[in-house]
């Protein structure tokens, strides 16, 4: 197998594992389908915005949970935001972590919220690494002169 085919095989396997392990869902493939020659960096751009958003929201949640009297509505509104954007990019583990988080906000359970915050933080960090890996593979394929295979 030549270099390009090898890289493409790696890409397909890696992408499939991301879906199989629930890191991303169909919405992520919808994003990939939107990318084209006139918007070749669309996915990378949207994903970067998403990770910036994550970081900011996680910080806000942490601050809100540190307060003497936690404003759970405030925490919940940050989680709601993150749930929304994770859903929009197909970051399904992050989204699920947010769903669990909201129930603890509703229950005004600070300990539960802190655990969920940790979970959300972890999921977003892992996903960030995985997608960076994926984008690197894409770059390698393109640099070698190959095309990025579509993975359904």
């Amino acid at each position, binding site marked *: 197998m030549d270099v390009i085919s090898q890289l493409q095989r790696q890409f397909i396997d890696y992408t499939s594992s991301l879906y199989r392990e629930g890191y991303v869902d169909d*919405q992520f493939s919808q994003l990939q389908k939107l990318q084209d020659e006139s918007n070749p960096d669309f996915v990378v751009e*949207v994903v970067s*915005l998403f990770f910036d958003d994550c970081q900011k929201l996680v910080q806000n949640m942490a601050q809100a949970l540190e307060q003497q009297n936690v404003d759970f509505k405030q925490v919940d509104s940050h989680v709601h935001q993150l*749930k929304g954007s994770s*859903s*929009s*990019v*197909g970051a399904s583990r992050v989204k699920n972590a947010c769903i669990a988080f909201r129930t603890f906000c509703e229950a005004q359970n600070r300990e539960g919220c802190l655990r969920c915050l940790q979970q959300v933080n972890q999921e977003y960090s892992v996903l960030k690494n995985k997608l960076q890996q994926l984008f690197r593979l894409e770059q390698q394929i393109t640099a070698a002169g190959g095309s990025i295979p579509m993975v359904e």
Partner: protein
Amino acid sequence: MEFSCVTSSSSKPHVLAVDDNLVDRKLVEMLLKKSSCKVTTAENGLRALEYLGLVDEQENSLESNESKVSMVITDYCMPGMTGYELLKKIKESSTTKGVPVVVMSSENIPTRINKCLEEGAQMFMLKPLKPSDVQKLTCNLVN
């Protein structure tokens, strides 16, 4: 996925997309562009009203944007002015009440949906939006 709507480049629908979330704004903008629309985005209801010339009760000027906007698509949950409140303001003004307004939300709440439809929303859509959703909306704008 092949959809075709006949559009001439001079009559591309111009859609105003309103959402406080940057990721969602970028996504809806792309979806609309792929459906051959010209897109203007606003990050909140107030900016949207300003764009539509509804804030200072301006008289119609030649520069007014609201005559150029074929459709408004807005998120429901926004700080300050909700999508519902924005919808109401658009429908209350004689200059913009004919503009179709689509409300989107990540939450499927029947009372919320009914409220928006009763206030004159063209459609209520669940997020995340898919290309087929947007195609359905914009096909109707081509005249």
